[in-house]
């Protein structure tokens, strides 16, 4: 396969990545979930918010155990758990990807300018980073989502605006390292503008660690969304999310007697996050020529 230019940095990284079994498995599982999210309407047997009735009666078919009609049973409102699980993948991934895009753009921008310009800009922004990381992530997220009317967009923006700090610190560190290399000094001596140096010479050379950070960040965003939705301040009913599907398990009765309601969404959540972490670890090792 000629995905990358032969013998380039990315070509070597790709070859190293392919040799890492766990990373390849992780990538495959992640891809599977992506396919599931994209083709949700084709895979899911029912609509996620469709209510089912007990046959011949005008009563919702609540808490039905798994059967042929409902592979994973029904939930507290008589909705098909399996269908909600499939559609939940869409919600989870959309939230995570958009949130990570926001945090990556903000974090990379701030990391680049603080690392490159230093001095006052650096001092001010790094203090802002200090302030934001002093608030435990979940606290800040909860505050934001309680103030605004909870919606999927608020969740996305809240996660994005809370988690840019680690990207900013990472990019800043990388810029500080690259800035001292000879070719940057040479570009400076040739009179290149700061903008050109940052965008053309620095950014392409620190993409690898940013890509690792995006992968890990996606996994973390999925966990954050799940926690928020579980606590009731994230994705709201009737939209299914793997986090809010577990809310019902806070009732002891559901927890003890109806494992089909809460175990499947927990498992898929764990699987997806684990798979993405494997990819992230694999990328990190692949990009590190010392390995």
């Amino acid at each position: 396969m000629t995905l990358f230019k032969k013998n380039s940095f990315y070509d070597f990284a790709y070859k190293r990545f392919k040799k890492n079994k766990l990373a390849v498995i992780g990538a495959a599982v992640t891809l599977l979930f992506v396919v599931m999210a994209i083709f949700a309407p084709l895979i899911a047997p029912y609509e996620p918010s469709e209510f089912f009735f007990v046959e011949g009666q005008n009563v919702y078919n609540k808490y039905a155990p798994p059967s042929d009609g409902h592979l994973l049973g029904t939930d507290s409102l008589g909705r098909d758990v399996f269908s909600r699980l499939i559609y939940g993948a869409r919600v989870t991934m959309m939230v995570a990807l958009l949130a990570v895009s926001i945090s990556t753009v903000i974090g990379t921008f701030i990391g680049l300018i603080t690392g490159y310009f230093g001095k006052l800009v650096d001092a001010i922004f790094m203090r802002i980073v200090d302030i934001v990381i002093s608030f435990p992530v979940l606290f800040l997220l909860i505050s934001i989502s309680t103030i605004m009317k909870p919606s999927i967009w608020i969740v996305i923006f809240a996660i994005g605006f809370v988690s840019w700090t680690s990207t900013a610190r990472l990019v800043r560190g990388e810029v500080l390292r690259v800035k001292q290399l000879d070719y940057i000094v040479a570009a400076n001596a040739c009179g290149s503008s700061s903008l050109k140096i940052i965008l053309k010479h620095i950014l392409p050379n620190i993409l690898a660690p940013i890509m690792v950070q995006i992968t890990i960040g996606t996994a973390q965003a999925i966990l954050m969304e799940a926690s928020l939705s579980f606590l009731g301040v994230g994705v709201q009913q009737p939209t299914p999310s793997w986090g809010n599907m577990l809310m019902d398990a806070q009732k002891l009765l559901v927890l003890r007697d109806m494992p089909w309601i809460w175990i499947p969404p927990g498992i898929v959540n764990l699987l997806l996050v684990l798979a993405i972490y494997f990819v992230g670890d694999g990328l990190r090792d692949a990009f590190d020529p010392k390995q």
Partner: protein
Amino acid sequence: MLKYIARRLLLSIPVIIGITILSFIIMKLSPGDPLANFINPSISMEDLEISRQALGLNDPLFVQYFKWIGQVVRGNFGYTYSGNHSISGLILERLPNTIILTLSAFVLSFVLGIPIGVIAAVRKNTRVDYGLTFFSLVGVAIPSFFFGLLVIYFFALVLGLFPSGGMINIRAGYTGYAYFKDVLHHLILPAIVLSLGNIASVSRFTRSNMLDVLKEDYIRTAKAKGLRNKAIVYKHAFRNALIPVVTIFGLSIPFLFSGAYITESIFNWPGMGQLGITAIQNREYGIIMALNLITATLVLLGNLTSDILYAIVDPRIRH
């Protein structure tokens, strides 16, 4: 050394001011009128306006900020909308319970995390290493609430080994040693759940540090001298690998406090996290903000302490 500590202290002053400003802004943005509780059909708009004036709600924002911060410094966080309880009273009541839980989880994560990391590093690329590394990754990847529910399901509901929630057995009315044993019995499951993610990150971090140190020249020298493998690992490598682990002390604090929110609400542990969850449900913004401010300050102090500890154990950092 003193100079370094003084510099770190000075640098944290703007941060702490920033924390209070951010808390204040979030509180001001929250919906709802502080006077909403006093509104009844018999009160006129003019009277409302007069009380607004009297309460200082018409002052410019920065004046309100300074009045608020003046009270906060004295430990007064205001009163709840419903019932008019003192917020600082509510928090003080629950702070010790949260500290018991987070401190146990903190100790647990280092007591278990460091040995796991060291063993994985020493047995690099063996089954033991793969097993432990896989376990750590699962620990980082599992949503804490899902792990909590699993633990309750198996250990409390199916096996009946531990209580499913709460901090004491209220009906038993234990005192003295029996009380201590009862709390410990209730503490075990939530402490394990809260520490899992942290155990995982401590062990991953210890493993990679240990591997770095084992590549150092002085380890090769020790080997060349004919030292036994045990002596090399535990006397030379282990000590040096532990130094950076100090930085995780500080990082653990926000992680554990965040986690306490979820763990406490799953296990009905009567701490600040559970107070926060109830506050969210009842839209008690005053409580949420006070909790935010207190934890942010604790986290800042935690980071400061770990930075200073790091500088003490590793003199290279000071420069």
